[in-house]
């Protein structure tokens, strides 16, 4: 009988996803791990597939991790975060205004309009809203929002929402916008936000991004082999480096779940999922 194949889910948020996973698949197979992947158009379907036996594990956004963890807990099951990128750890988002804005502090945002990313973006929507809430500012009550809702169901993986919000800020259509710190630097370098044209009003706390989430009952030996092969990938290996560059990391690290507290809180406060992982935001389309 042939060895069982490890089946992983990934969300096709951009065409490069095919290149990445075809490349990794070849790497795994060459190194003796029978591996295949299934692409989803959104994280919600992918997480659900983790509970119907389709997938052994999934390359999940932080929001997808939150949902998978809640569904598992509601069923008395367990999921695990087994690996992540070095670049997934300790991210922060920024709330940015135009340099010439009269807004000097978060309190000055009362009555203003804030540009957010996609409705389901942890970094450009949910975590910044959480940060504002901890500062006493609640959406709709204290300020208006405008979503730049690009590619719903992709959990903000697509940079387009953040870029559109940044452009709207420069055009004076919103008073502030929210984006991940690295994108503020990238938009400064590429001229989307000319350097000196914006002011960072606040930064959120640190949070973690994607992880490989195991499905309940996933074959432990295959998962172990998968993780050890990930850890063996080296940036100085020219066969693997292009894939790591596409995926945006220098090295894989062991998974950790200590960096999701801010998002957990945001999901509850924004009523995005309930405690059992059911989608409760009526405006969410994916």
């Amino acid at each position, binding site marked *: 009988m042939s060895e069982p194949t490890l089946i992983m889910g990934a969300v096709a948020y951009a065409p490069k996803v095919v290149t990445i996973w075809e490349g990794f698949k070849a790497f795994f197979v060459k190194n003796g791990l029978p591996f295949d992947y299934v692409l989803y158009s959104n994280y919600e379907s992918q997480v659900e597939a983790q509970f119907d036996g389709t997938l052994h594990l999934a390359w999940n956004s932080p929001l997808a991790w939150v949902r998978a963890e809640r569904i598992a807990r509601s069923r008395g099951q367990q999921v695990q975060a087994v690996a992540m990128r070095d670049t997934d*750890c300790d991210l922060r988002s920024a709330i940015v205004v135009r340099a010439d804005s009269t807004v000097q502090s978060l309190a000055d945002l009362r009555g203003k309009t804030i540009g957010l990313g996609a409705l389901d973006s942890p970094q450009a929507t949910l975590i910044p809203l959480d940060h504002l809430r901890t500062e006493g500012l609640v959406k709709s009550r204290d300020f208006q929002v405008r979503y730049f809702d690009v590619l719903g169901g992709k959990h903000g993986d697509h940079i387009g929402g953040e870029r559109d919000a940044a452009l709207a800020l420069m055009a004076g259509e919103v008073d502030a916008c929210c984006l991940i710190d690295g994108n503020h630097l990238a938009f400064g370098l590429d001229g989307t936000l000319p350097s000196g044209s914006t002011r960072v009003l606040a930064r959120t706390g640190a949070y973690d991004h994607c992880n490989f989430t195991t499905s309940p009952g996933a074959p432990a030996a295959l998962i172990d082999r998968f993780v050890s092969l990930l850890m063996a990938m080296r940036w100085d290996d*020219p066969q693997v*480096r292009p894939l790591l560059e596409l995926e945006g990391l220098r090295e894989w690290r062991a998974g950790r779940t200590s960096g999701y507290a801010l998002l957990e809180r945001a999901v509850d406060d924004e009523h995005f999922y309930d405690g059992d992982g059911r989608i409760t935001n009526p405006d969410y389309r994916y």
Partner: protein
Amino acid sequence: MAASPTPTIDIESLGLDQGALLLIRRALAERPVGGELRVRGQSPDWRMHLEAWCRSQGHPLRFETAEEATVTRGPHAEGRWLGAQSTGFAQGDANGAPAEDAAPGWGLAARGATVEAGSPPFFFALYRRDEVWAATAGELYRQAAAAQWDPGTAIDWDAPFDLPLAVEAAVVQVMTYLIENENAALLVPARHLGQIHPHFREVLQLLALQCSDEARHVEVFTRRATLRGHQPALSTAGGQASLRTLFDAPDFSVATFLLAVLGEGSFVNLLNFLQANAPDPVTRQIARLTARDEARHVAFGMAHLEYRLSVQPDYQARLRNAIEVRYDTLASTAGLNEEVFDALVLLAAGELSPSAVARGHAAVQQLQRDMAAGRRARLARLGFDRDEAQRLSDLHTRNFM
């Protein structure tokens, strides 16, 4: 012994999105892996940007004070250049020659560059030096670059002349014939050009200019053909069959031999004949300029074959075979069409009187003798003995090219 102090770089009020990244990258590159660099800054967002950049590059970072951070150089940056390949020297070896074989992984990189491992391979059919190289390729390229001319200004298109209708028609017929030959002289090297590994850049550059020369020739011959309102004239099956054998030549050296050494060599004689005998100043100017270009093409063809035969003497048999096979292929064709032959006679005659035609006919016969002598001389330079050179020259197509 006191530990040496940690190097410090002060980016002052320069933002990371304003160029400070360059300063940080350079300073960090001077530190060993695991070594530390202290960064001081004052611009409003420098801390946030440094944090984001260090995360993306895998450099650990800690803030000492609000104005000062310590970056530890991560291990990844040099990984990019492990196993990188050197592609020789820009100027070639001590003799100025490029590498013997150009590797697919060198791709399109400059000769002498360092190429990252994992660069995609490019499969160039012509990657061996002996198959394309000529010792004088670089010098011929420089000559060619210096000798480019503008068809619009180099020729006095408005120069006054008036020809009898029959003589003008003869000019048009000769131009028609020249155009189809120049199309071949453009397309045959062009078809090989894309197959040559760019490591042999002098050859690539020279052939590119050769193509450009021929493109210009097609233009000026076309302009002369239509200068008096005529359309180009007749093209024969035999003529095209002859050119077709150049397209079908199996490799670069054989194609170069048939095209440049035999064909374009004879062509130079023909253009010199036109420069001396054409009935109007425009045609004479065109012939003078194009002959100069063609002479360079012949020089490269000769230099390449001399080089190849110097490293591979038995390649001579391939050249002999190429002439014989071509002769057999064309044995049943008509060769040079009588329209072109008569047109050349008439051009040299300038008018239709018997005495003028006799003069023109003699001139064309002299042209044919000059062509044969040129072919024999070039074959002799390539190492064929006297009788063999004579025999092979006689086998050359009657189409000139």
